[in-house]
């Protein structure tokens, strides 16, 4: 390696280090906060690695049965909203792509531009009128605002790139349109299904604004539950950070392991919920 190339390499690694460190340092600090007793968290200068790890912060959070309730609420809301969105959104993406009905994408664009709060006023009144406010149903339905556009948008993009020849061959062999979709188009679009599913899950899981309005004490999802912890125990940083980390941990895990799909999905449609 020539000295000039070596300098270039060192420069590159230095740049990589500078660029990635805000993310790495932040999450390391988050872990550090979550593993410290109050004495260490209140110390100045700050302690990065404590002498004694406060695993208790995690066991306390997990042991409280409220946390488990909220975890299952999040699971049901995100799971329900994502599955429903896949169920209606995947065929819709296929139909729109095959009909070349590009104008219908404007509705999705409008949904993308609209602030989440403006859906809340009418739907809040509707759910109140239907007497559904104490249940998880309103949250599942309103999360569709986030998940359905993501799924449709990504699936249109995928079905537009899948070859038509195979489908036409199947049609000539006498397959119905549904059979063509189910047995020819869908298997080819499997990578797209994964992308749509992952992004819908993440943006639904992270959603906060719908929960603060629609969730009651028993129907909070994890982001809302964590927010409520801030207001109650302002000073116990350890358990708070532990709870925050537990809430976002599934998403971070998914980000690292499915980063190829996430990058593909985000650069294709650049969709974000809320």
């Amino acid at each position, binding site marked *: 390696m020539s000295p000039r190339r070596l300098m270039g390499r060192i420069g590159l690694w230095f740049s990589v280090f500078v*660029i990635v460190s805000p993310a790495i340092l932040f999450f390391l600090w988050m872990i550090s906060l979550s593993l410290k007793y109050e004495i260490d968290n*209140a110390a100045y200068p700050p302690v990065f690695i404590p002498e004694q790890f406060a695993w208790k912060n995690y066991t306390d959070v997990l042991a409280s049965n409220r946390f488990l309730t909220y975890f299952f609420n999040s699971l049901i809301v995100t799971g329900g909203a994502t599955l429903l969105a896949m169920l209606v959104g995947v*065929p*819709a993406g296929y139909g729109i792509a095959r009909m070349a009905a590009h104008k219908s994408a404007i509705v999705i664009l409008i949904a993308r531009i609209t*602030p989440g709060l*403006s859906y809340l006023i009418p739907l809040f009144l509707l759910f109140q009128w239907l007497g559904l406010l104490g249940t998880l149903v309103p949250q599942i339905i309103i999360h569709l605002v986030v998940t359905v556009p993501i799924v449709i948008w990504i699936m249109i993009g995928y079905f537009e790139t899948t070859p038509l020849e195979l489908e036409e061959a199947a049609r000539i062999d006498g397959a119905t349109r549904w059979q063509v979709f189910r047995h020819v188009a869908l298997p080819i679009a499997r990578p797209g299904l994964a992308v749509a599913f992952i992004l819908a899950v993440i943006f639904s899981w992270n959603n906060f604004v719908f929960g603060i309005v629609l969730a009651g004490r028993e129907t909070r999802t994890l982001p809302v539950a*964590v927010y409520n912890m801030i207001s109650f125990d302002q000073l116990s940083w350890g358990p708070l950070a532990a709870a925050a980390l537990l809430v976002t941990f599934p*998403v971070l895990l998914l980000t690292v392991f499915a980063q190829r799909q996430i990058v593909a999905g985000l650069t294709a449609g650049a969709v974000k919920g809320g």
Partner: protein
Amino acid sequence: MSTITETSPAAAETSAAPEQEWHRPTYWPFVLPALIVVLAVIVFPWLFTIWMSFNEWKVGSPTTFVGFANYLRLPNDPRFVEAVGHTIVYTALSVILPLIFGTLAAVVFHQRFAGRGFLRGVFIMPMMATPVAIALVWTMMFHPQLGVLNYLLSLVGLPPQLWVFNPATVIPSLVLVETWQWTPLVMLIVLGGLAAIPTEPYESAEIDGAGFWQMFRYITLPLIMPFLFIAGMIRMIDAVKSFDIIFAITQGGPGSASETINLYLYSVAFVYYDLGYGSAIAVVFFLLIVLLAAVLLYLRKRMLWTEIGGGA
């Protein structure tokens, strides 16, 4: 020079086949369920919001039609006017800073190095992480006495700051979080643009003895402009609507120093339960976003036009 084939003859043949025309309408059953959902959760709320914005409606009392009264209240509502100002400052900063840092990061991630995929995954973690969870950690980091940020400032000899607890610094502090969170999205979009640039211009520039900066300025930047524009547009739409981070860290405070339109809308609709007025704010807010997007599109057209004009 290599020849550019735009469409393969086979593809052109199939799309021109008469059968295509015949089976187009029959795809409606595929779209119908989604159409019902979209009508119910997106279109219905929109129509309802517009209708409600013409009514005086507080929860628990009957509604009365008031025409444009809710809209006329807006310019005379100092809190709303102030919120518009905060939103503009917050949005401008939250578009420009991620664009700059995201482009720099994309140039670095465009190089080949070991562990690039993994590090890119780490780099995009801030934007995928649950906003409320990271807001909570930032709140701890902003703490004037115990926060790690003031400790870091003291290491480089700077005086401690009040961050989000000072009306003068609260918006820049929140923009810091927003920039940290959304620079990765800009990076991904620009990275896509960089991947599409051919290598020939760089090779000839290198022969001509151009330096790294010159190549960036005169080759890379013009070619990634369309991608920067898309990134800026998306960033603008998201920054205007930003809610989670601001709400979780400051709730619009101290006082109302960081109250943006979206936060004010929340207060009006779900703290004061003034739903008619809240709906009017929602409509105006939406129109404002559409207007901003239109202005950006117009600027883009102008820019293209002058580029062509300058080249002639």
